[in-house]
């Protein structure tokens, strides 16, 4: 069962680390780092049901993404 209750220690620190991870990277490099991070974390979790739940959660609400500037 995917846990989406707060579970990250020092969440603002984590968030900043995540943004910093991408500093000065090209879009292509960022995409690669994100993919590697997904794979590393997926392996660490190692639970197929949780991984599938996470993919489902990631796929939700995609139609409500902003389509361009000023539509946030």
């Amino acid at each position, binding site marked *: 069962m995917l846990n989406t209750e707060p579970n990250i220690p020092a969440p603002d620190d984590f968030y900043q680390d995540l943004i910093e991870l991408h500093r000065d990277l090209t879009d292509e490099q960022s*995409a*690669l780092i994100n*993919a*590697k991070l*997904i794979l590393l974390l997926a392996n660490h979790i190692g639970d197929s049901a949780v991984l599938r739940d996470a993919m489902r959660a990631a796929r939700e609400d995609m139609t409500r993404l902003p389509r361009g500037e000023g539509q946030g």
Partner: protein
Amino acid sequence: MKTYTSPVYPYVRPAELSGGATRHWPVIVAGAGPVGLTAAIDLAQRGIDVLVLDDDNTVSVGSRAICWSKRALEILDRLGCGERIVQKGVKWNVGRVFFRDEQVFDFNLSPDAGHRRPAFINLQQYWVEQLLVERVGELSQAELRWRNKVVGVAPQADRIVVRVSTPDGDYAVQADWLIVADGARSPIRGMLGLESEGEVFHDRFLIADIYMTSDFPPERWFWFDPPFHRNQSALLHRQADHVWRVDFQLGWDADPEEEKKPERILPRLKAMLGDKVEFEIEWASVYTFQCRRMLSFRHGRALFAGDAAHLVSPFGARGANSGIQDIDNLAWKLELVLEDLAPQTLLDSYDVERAFAADENILATTRSTEFITPKGKASRTFRDAVLMLAKRHPFARRLVNSGRLSVPAILRDSPLNTADAAGAAFGGAMAPGTPAADAPVTGPRGDWLLAYLEDGFTLLAFGAEVPADAVASLARDAIPVTVVQVGGPPTAGARRIEDREGMLATRYDARAGTCYLFRPDQHVCARWRAFDLARLRAALALATGQIAIVQKAAA
């Protein structure tokens, strides 16, 4: 070619063209490729007259199947031609995968000790066909007709009529059953108005055989994005007679006619092998790959096998190997149906079981093809991410997919299986639907278990578990069962082997009293913790299509 001269097989004017009635055969096989030839051998060994028709008069031309799997070799052993193929071929176990200029991992397919055959041997398809033709020639009940081309097929209620064209004119012949092994484009599939559905992979590959006396080890080397072939993949693998197979991925936009030219190929090879290596090109062509299958492999009296039934991309060596396994599955069922010992509906289980295996092979090769030739940016990003992680992180190596090499399907949901009884508590991997694992033994037929699982049903009993009167009774049944006893005091009528290293009992999770019933294709169909003649006969009836699935629950 430097290393091989294709045989030219004689065309013989068929007797049918000199007048006389249309002859009736139990089985006609259309196509003398590896699958059609395997069918001819298996059926002839079973005492069935078989006619094989091929529109050509030689073996396969060019660079086609090369990796013959352990299961295929075991089947060819049963068909009396495994050893000659293994002797001519090149054993290999190690593969290496490179990303850019570094090796990211290696694997060793070598099965645990205690199997007769290696994971794979490599041998050019034309050699395998030549050796299979030789074996067919040793069997008087198989007749092979070259330059006999099937031009029409007319199924009827009680037979199938085949029209054949030869240099001397056309004739008709008929059979109870037609095995259609006429390859990927299957003219007979078209004649019957049947489809094979799937997808084409949008990429092109240069496939070449080169002659090279070098010190490269007989390992499968696969490169992603190497310096000598940027942004594409490449493969190098050794075959017999110093012939090496080379693949270069070219991309969808490559021009096949241009890329086949020596002036295009030579620089690629020099870049891959280095300037000092001498080589000659024996054959080169450009291919696209696809995955397809027919909805059903049985169409009345026509039974489709090999590429005619299902097509896969070559990554993983699941093409010819699965076609040979198709025949392993089909021939014993045809024998029983021809002898009126099983209903024709038993042949529907061929479709059920082999379509299941085909789907497994299609899934595996589609996944490999996606990894090798990713569709879309996201797929490519993940593919490259896996390769980048593989050098340092073991989990990522497991995700690298340059081909999941062929293993036989486990027919776990087959309607012919008898489920384990509750409480039988079997561990290990030998559940019903699994092809027999080999093991070292001592006995009158030599040192390997599989030699004792011959062309009929076999009961492997651990200890002197089966009384002599039951052994005798099973030998006299319409569908006889041979009893092979492992250890214990000898029993009259039973073969006896010793589990020389204890691996047999370990692999089969066997204790005294354990019994395994094997089908004629060496697949487990039932197993018990004690011998029971009535249960054995019920399992046999189920495995031969005599009783409906609904009765399985009574076991």
